């Protein structure tokens, strides 16, 4: 018994998947029902046109060379990106492992280590507080040439007052003094003992000038 509704369900499947020989067999089967046959022809034609239209949009041969080079470029870019991210991930993992790592230490050893650490910190702090020994200043000798102002000779004539004493008396006094000096020099060697310098030394300076210095 021919059932159009049931037939139409499988027509699409038959038109899509069947081989040409199968399709001709179906055509023969559908000869008895023109509506089903027309339906089958319609579906088959639609699918054939679709196939051909899809093939018509296929790129030409020249397209594929560029496509392959672009594919290769994107693969290389992706490989480079992935290697970078892999390196970064490995670094992150190693860093995390470093912070997460455990070390089993017996309690006494741990206490000793803590004590040693504490003492080290204590002494380090103290040594930092002590004043630093001042190193002797280094002496640097430099020769500096200083310009010397040209020297100028100044002639000074110093006069002193003479106390006029009569010649005889002075001679006599001088002779006495000389005798006394000789006597003392005989007994004692000449010395400056008893010498008293005058309280004031008077100097009278007379400035002379050359005729040119005006």
């Amino acid at each position, binding site marked *: 018994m021919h059932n159009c509704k049931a037939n139409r369900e499988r027509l699409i499947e038959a038109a899509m*998947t069947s081989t040409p020989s199968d399709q001709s067999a179906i055509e023969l089967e559908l000869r008895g029902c023109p*509506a089903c046959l027309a339906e089958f*022809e*319609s579906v088959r034609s639609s699918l054939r046109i679709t196939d051909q239209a899809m093939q018509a949009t296929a*790129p*030409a041969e*020249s397209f*594929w060379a560029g496509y*392959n080079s672009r594919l*290769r470029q994107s693969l290389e870019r992706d490989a480079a990106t992935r290697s970078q991210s892999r390196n970064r991930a490995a670094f992150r993992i190693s860093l995390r492992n470093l912070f997460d790592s455990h070390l089993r230490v017996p309690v006494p050893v741990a206490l000793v280590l803590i004590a040693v650490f504490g003492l080290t910190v204590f002494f380090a702090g103290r040594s930092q507080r002590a004043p630093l020994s001042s190193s002797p200043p280094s002496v640097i000798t430099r020769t500096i040439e200083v310009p010397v102002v040209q020297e100028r000779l100044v002639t000074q004539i110093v006069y002193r007052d003479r106390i006029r004493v009569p010649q005889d008396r002075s001679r006599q006094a001088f002779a006495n003094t000389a005798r006394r000096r000789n006597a003392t020099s005989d007994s004692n060697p000449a010395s400056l003992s008893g010498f008293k310098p005058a309280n004031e030394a008077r100097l009278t300076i007379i400035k002379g000038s050359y005729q040119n210095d005006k």
Partner: protein
Amino acid sequence: MTNIEDELIKRAQSADMDAFCLLAKQYERRIYLLALNYCHNPQDAEDLSQEVWLKAYQALKNFRSESSFYTWLRRITINCFLNHRRARSYRWGGQTTDVTLASMEGIEDTAGAAPDMNSERSLHNRIMAEKVMQALSELTPPQRLIFLLKHHEGMTYEEIAKEIGCSTGAAKKSVHRAVAKLRQHLNVGDQESATFRTLPNGIEIGV
């Protein structure tokens, strides 16, 4: 062929990019055409197909030869297409894209159509491709993908249902809907089916 492919797969698994490129060369046309019929845009198709190859390259170490390489690759392709659909619907609020003659010109430009193709043939090709694309663009992306997997890849409804994650009935319904849309756009009705004529390039058109 299989031995060569196995050898290429082994080399590619040990990060040999040349081997992977040779492997890709065998299937790139098939994947690209699937993407092109899914996206209706050459640029999107290239992006999508290259994304498939990138994913395949990254996941190749996990390929255990339990199925054929192409079956495994097709699974990646379907996932990429579905994810691409999600990304697009997120961006565009699920709007369907209208296919215009301009987009088909883009396809022809990219494809580098042969210059000696006569203008009548070219025009008919373009019109038919336009109609097919228009019909497919009126489907939802999963319906379109299901139709392409059935018609282009020859998968069974059970396989499609398993890969897409839907029921067999839903897969069948999607294919029926796609065929109905194609018939509607191509004007291939009960009466028109008898009046098809073959164009110089072999494409039949309803008059």
